[in-house]
């Protein structure tokens, strides 16, 4: 983001400042990177209680029109025709070469699909959708809505104490809920690996609702810094870092996002290359790395096996719940097996690291019965 670009304020801007947030530019917005407690405390609090995140920078988009499901299936490898009402699906917007343009959540609602996309690329996503979806499909950006995330083991109890019935909303489901006179959309989803919810509501109601949540002693505000360390521990890729048009879903270890029917039937952007990679394997793979010692390795650090460069770190830092540095990297497939011993170069020093399965910290999702 260029410095001279005008930064937008989030709907909760005043509240963040009131709470003592340190604000930084991110995705074209001024966003809270941390509050006075600091990143480590906010991270650990989310894992044991409930953290409130303002993620209103993310794009909320409605896709409306007849045959919107099949139209979206041409651009993404998810099964949207078969997606039931009130269910979410993690998916990937792909270019014709199978490169990832964005990762996103797609929800089927009664009469449309609801997409939540990354803030940094939402304009590009909308342009891509506009270019590729049939004219009969309407693409409506809901910039009138805010998006909050309440994440952590106490998140469900906090919402229930406010009178929201969330018991039936299990992981990757969503529902409209009437709470204190306001219609809000609640889904059980998030970016921390913990149980938790994402809450879409009118921007003008967001500050009042956030304050209501913060009245509960179980809830503390959590900034972007802890959001990043939490998602890293959960093994979740960050678009623009661990995902880009340079990588395919197969290379990124996201083959699960290609629905079974779509694997058999194809018919999505980039299918030829992706099919070939599923069959023959890939040259590189995204892996999780645990580092020996305490010195973290950051994005861009080269990864070696002996003298041979095998890849590059795409995310890395200190993991508060692990108590050690962790990283994600793309490395040559032959070096990507669990337990493989690699070295990461940081400021001319070689740090020993080993490939470990992700997530680094177990997920605590509350799943419903498969149906």
């Amino acid at each position, binding site marked *: 983001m260029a410095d001279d670009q005008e930064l937008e304020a989030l709907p909760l801007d005043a509240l963040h400042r009131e709470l003592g947030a*340190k604000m930084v530019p991110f995705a074209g917005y001024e966003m809270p*990177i*941390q509050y006075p407690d*600091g*990143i*480590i405390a906010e991270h650990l609090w989310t894992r044991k209680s409930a953290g409130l995140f303002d993620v209103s920078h993310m794009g909320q988009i409605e896709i409306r029109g007849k045959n919107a499901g099949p139209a979206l299936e041409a651009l993404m490898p998810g099964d949207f025709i078969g997606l039931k009402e009130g269910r979410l699906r993690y998916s990937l917007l792909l270019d014709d070469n199978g490169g990832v343009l964005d990762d996103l959540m797609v929800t089927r609602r009664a009469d449309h699909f609801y997409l939540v996309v990354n803030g940094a690329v939402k304009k590009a996503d909308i342009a891509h959708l506009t270019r590729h979806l049939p004219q009969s499909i309407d693409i409506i950006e809901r910039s009138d809505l805010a998006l909050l995330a309440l994440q952590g083991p106490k998140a469900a109890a906090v919402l229930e104490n406010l009178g929201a019935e969330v018991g039936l909303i299990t992981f990757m489901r969503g529902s409209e809920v009437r709470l204190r006179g306001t219609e809000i959309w609640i889904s059980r989803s998030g970016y921390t690996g913990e149980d938790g919810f994402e809450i879409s509501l009118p921007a003008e109601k967001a500050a009042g609702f956030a304050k209501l949540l913060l009245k509960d002693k179980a809830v503390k505000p959590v900034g972007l*810094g802890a959001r990043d*360390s939490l998602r890293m521990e959960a093994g979740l890729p960050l678009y623009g870092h661990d995902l880009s048009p340079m990588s395919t879903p197969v290379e990124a270890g996201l083959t699960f996002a290609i629905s079974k029917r779509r694997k058999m039937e194809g018919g999505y952007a980039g299918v030829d290359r992706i099919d070939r990679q599923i069959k023959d394997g890939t040259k590189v793979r995204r892996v999780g790395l645990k580092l020996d010692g*305490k*010195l*973290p390795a*950051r994005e861009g650090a080269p990864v070696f096996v002996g003298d041979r460069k095998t890849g590059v770190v795409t995310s890395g*830092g*200190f993991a*508060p719940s692990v108590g050690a*540095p962790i990283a994600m990297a793309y490395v040559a497939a032959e070096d990507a097996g669990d337990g493989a011993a690699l070295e990461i170069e940081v*400021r001319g020093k070689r740090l020993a690291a080993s490939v470990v399965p992700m997530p680094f910290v177990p997920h605590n999702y509350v799943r419903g019965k498969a149906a």
Partner: protein
Amino acid sequence: MSIYFTEEHEWIRVDGETATVGVTDYAQGQLGDVVFVELPEIGKVIDKGGEAAVVESVKAASEVYAPVSGEVIEVNGALEDDPALVNSAAEDEGWFLKLTLSDKAELDGLMDGTAYKAFVKDL
């Protein structure tokens, strides 16, 4: 013994020919939670403005440049086990290194505590 401050938010406590160097409380607040401090080898000769240490916070790595020239005679081993000392006691137990000053004239023009306080207030 006198204490000097730089515009790069370092403090230098001078005792005879020896200078103890650390980052200020303001600096630690800007850095956030410190998780690692990379310190120089003892015996290394550092020029003023050269890299003296690297502070890794949760968010990022930040270089600390030597505010004065000199030879490193001691580093704070306590930071290895407890890098968060930089957050909790930046201007005391969270010191980084000790130098033998090679040119005391480099201290001229640095701020004293009062001037630094005023400097930070205007940021």
